[in-house]
């Protein structure tokens, strides 16, 4: 049988490019952080916003949420290797801290104590979840590195 496959191995692994996936992740987390901040600004605005401003805020929130959904969908469809998980963990932790800082600052300036506690509580949940993801990702990578060393030591 002299037939050959109609595609190459490169075709299979091309979709696994790390920069492309990190780019998608940054866009998704950026969209999520942006839409959360704009939503908070809108919710804590003391007076009624003009119709045009409301329309722009709604559009920006929609764009941010759409990017977050797209990133989630794109990452779920692809395998997450150890380095991807560690990068995801770091990015998620960074965005969680930044978003929490931003929302608490807005709440302090614009809302009551209850609002500050609510923003702080939500931020704390985000930080705990993202930090747990990061810790687990680093532990998974450490386990694989140990396994790799073990296999290399058995190399003849």
């Amino acid at each position, binding site marked *: 049988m002299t037939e050959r*496959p109609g595609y190459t191995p490169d075709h299979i692994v091309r979709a*696994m490019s790390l920069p492309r996936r990190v780019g998608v992740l940054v866009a998704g987390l950026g969209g999520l952080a942006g839409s959360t901040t704009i939503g908070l600004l809108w919710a804590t605005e003391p007076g009624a916003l003009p119709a045009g401003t409301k329309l722009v805020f709604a559009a920006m929130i929609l764009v941010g949420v759409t990017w977050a959904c797209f990133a989630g969908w794109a990452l779920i*469809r692809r395998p997450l*290797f*150890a380095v991807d998980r560690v990068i995801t963990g770091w990015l998620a932790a960074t965005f969680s801290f930044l978003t929490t800082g931003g929302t608490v600052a807005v709440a302090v300036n614009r809302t009551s104590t209850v609002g500050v506690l609510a923003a702080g509580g939500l931020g704390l949940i985000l930080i705990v979840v993202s930090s747990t993801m990061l810790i687990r990702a680093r532990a998974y990578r450490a386990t694989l590195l140990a*396994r*790799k060393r073990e*296999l290399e030591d058995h190399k003849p």
Partner: protein
Amino acid sequence: MDRVGRDALLVVRAQLGDRKALAELVGHWHDPLWRYVRRMLDGPGRADDVSQDVWASALKALPRLQQPERFAPWLFTIARRSVTNHLREKYTQADPVDGDGTGDDDISAVLDRAQVAEGLVGLPVREREVLILFYLHDLALEECAQVLQIPSGTVKSRLFRARRLLRDSLVEKGYSS
């Protein structure tokens, strides 16, 4: 380093996120996987579609592979599942009854890969796939058993029957046993 050790190290490196190791792993198994699918299905175009689906499923599940040294049987198990799904639409044959043969006969001595490949055409699916895995991909009996999800003894008996069918087919085509 033997094939199993080489694959295990490449799998762990790929699980860590080493794209070169992933490319090397795919490079090693690209042709064997395609040939397995091609011999089980009609037409190279269909083999391309199915084998690409197999790679997509395998790479998605690769980070969860707990035993990297079992990569080959794991990959062929995924391939077999995809092939079975495609064949199910075409074949509705009843399960053949497994025999009790021990699996050793004189045909082993004279078989070579070209003869096996030629004689495979026209064999029933179950016999064809066990010959492909054992002779053309050099999987061990235990590995064949894992892929086919049957005991090693059944692999032996299936090989015994497959070789007899293959011998008959080759004799018909003019080869002497």
